[in-house]
């Protein structure tokens, strides 16, 4: 980082089916909470960055930057960024760039999404915009479908069993029990996950993150606070799986994570807890391998051995992750930073003891974009 960037505070709405709230209601709630928690005045905000994917398709609302800015008394400059499910992470990255360049001193970063107004097939189609329309969408593929292809191949290559795969969602659900903002505050045993309705073989309903509404907002600043962002990296890859060589590894995650470790001067083992992009159970396994926490084919080890809880070997998704806390697409990447912030300031409902360093891993599409943020207690 060319300049030190700190997290002053943040807030999120509950995640879930929030039929009483519109996209704008969600944004307003998160922004008000973030400003209050960070102790700055609204007029201290120099710029606004909002991450959102399908506001246009499902809420008929584009131009979100100005929409948010219009709600602030002094109408600061604002922009919307979109990188599918990594919209939130890329929004944070953009805000870091504004701070590092000296364009701003305090930036309000928002991630927001409203999905549950539309019928499921329309939501599925809208999310599919994150794929390659020429290569993926024409075949009738869906996102669960693409990750189904990946999971099928992974099981074939490495002999992953159905029961082991279910340990991923089971662990994330267990973690969400304590999170008051989570969509599903409920633990679900492995056999129930293995028997849930098929969505895209071999993936079942409880392998998939839900369709959620929600928003999260944070204030980033060059003024010191307890939590510093030590690295902010974004990497990309071909959008379609059909254009890549590997089906079971995401190059973007590998690149972004390596660059982030280098930027922060950390070792992988320095990380005390992480928010991992578990859009599908199989994805969490791939990411752990791509970031080098496990050998190829061994990523499920931490889940299988029950080592992902707060006192485990590698605490993962103390919030419940995308699976159990919910996945309002654009909000996820920002919410991850907020959860890391809570862990590092000892304020998380599912607190990891002595948490000094945290990782937020956020991908878009089939890992065509990956945003990695490393945060530490300053």
């Amino acid at each position: 980082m060319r300049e030190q960037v700190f997290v002053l505070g943040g807030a999120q709405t509950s995640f879930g089916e929030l039929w009483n709230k519109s996209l704008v209601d969600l944004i307003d709630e998160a922004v008000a909470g973030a400003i209050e928690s960070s102790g700055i005045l609204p007029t201290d905000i120099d710029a606004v960055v909002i991450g959102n994917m399908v506001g246009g398709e499902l809420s008929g609302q584009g131009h979100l930057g100005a929409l948010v800015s219009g709600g602030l008394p002094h109408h600061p400059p604002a922009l919307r960024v979109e990188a599918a499910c990594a919209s939130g992470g890329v929004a944070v990255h953009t805000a870091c760039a504004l701070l590092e360049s000296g364009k701003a001193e305090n930036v309000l970063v928002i991630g927001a999404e409203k999905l549950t107004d539309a019928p499921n097939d329309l939501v599925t189609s809208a999310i599919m915009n994150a794929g390659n329309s020429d290569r993926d969408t024409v075949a009738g593929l869906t996102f669960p479908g693409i990750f189904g292809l990946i999971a099928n191949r992974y099981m074939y290559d490495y002999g992953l069993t159905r029961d082991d795969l279910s340990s991923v969602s089971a662990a994330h659900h267990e973690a969400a029990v304590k999170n008051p903002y989570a969509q599903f505050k409920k633990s679900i045993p492995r056999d129930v996950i293995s028997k849930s309705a098929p969505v895209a073989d071999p993936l079942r309903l409880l392998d998939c993150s839900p369709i959620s509404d929600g928003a999260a907002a944070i204030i980033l600043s060059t003024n010191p606070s307890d939590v510093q962002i030590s690295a902010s990296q974004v990497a990309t890859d071909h959008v379609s799986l059909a254009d890549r060589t590997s089906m079971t590894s995401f190059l973007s995650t590998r690149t972004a994570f390596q660059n982030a470790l280098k930027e922060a001067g950390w070792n992988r083992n320095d990380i005390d807890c992480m928010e991992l992009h578990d859009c599908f159970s199989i994805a969490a396994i791939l990411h752990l391998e791509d970031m080098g926490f496990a050998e190829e084919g061994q990523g499920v080890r931490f889940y299988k051995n029950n080592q992902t809880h707060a006192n485990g070997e590698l605490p993962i998704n103390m919030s419940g992750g995308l699976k159990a806390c919910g996945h309002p697409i654009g909000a996820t990447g920002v919410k991850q930073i907020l959860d890391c912030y809570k862990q590092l300031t000892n304020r998380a409902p599912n607190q990891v003891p002595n948490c000094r360093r945290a990782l937020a891993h956020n991908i878009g599409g089939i890992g065509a974009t990956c945003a990695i943020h490393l945060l530490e207690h300053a």
Partner: protein
Amino acid sequence: MPNSAPELHRRLKKIKEQPATPGTLLSFTTIHNPPHGFGSEPYSVGLIQLEDGSRVHAQLTHDGYIPTIGAHVVPRLRRIRTLENGLFVNGYKYEVVETAPEVKLHIQQYVLALTGPSGVGKTTITRMLTSLMSSYADQVPIYTTRQPKKNEVEPYTYVTKQEFDRMIESKKMIAYTHMESNSEERYYGYCRDDIEKIWKSGRLPLVVTDIHLLKGLSESLGRRAILSCGLLPPGKSRRRMISNLLHRLRIRGRDTEAQIQERLKVATYDLDAFDAHPHLFDHLVVNDKLEACVEHIGALAVRPA
């Protein structure tokens, strides 16, 4: 804009320009929740490695052949769907024309063994498994000294007691068990040659065992050569399990009440075997829903050992 007339026109032009190449299946899935415009029925989609080196996502058709990773597929120009405005969307679907040869490699040199008490559904499950896995699994013939019955479904080979003993002496028979009943004394056994013959043809031998047969197989073939599934009747307690078995034996109507009681005695012994010899079982599967159970065992069997 997707699926506008000009977009469809461009795509059709592109399809005409590109030569259609066959390929092999890298992976496949069934979409149970189609996106908008693709109807509501599930369909299969694959990622295909084409012979020209490129890869493509496409829907699969498979009359008769089950898609497998490595399967050979050929392109067929098909109507993918009809849009609300009446326009047709045409494109390639890929037809599975041959199953993957690789699958056989993974299943060589091991035996799928099913063990469970009488009445748990071994025969039914075996029958469903052999039809589900008909392209790569065979049931191993059982040698028995008992008299043939009508409408026998198991692949029994009937031998006399003397022949049976000779097979044991000559070490041809690698596992056997005997069941005492009031009516007759019966022996059952498996021969090494039969299993090796199935292995040689690159297929998976399937055996139905009791604890003695399982022990015998495990000693002669090696424990690691056996994928051993124990079948449990549904029921939370032992009493419920036994009462479930009793119910099944009665509705099956094959035995007299005296025979049922006899079978139940053996079944109790078989249930104890699960606890007494846990090292002999890789998986315990509860047969509460038959299809799910068969699917489960089938999935266990074909994953790379």
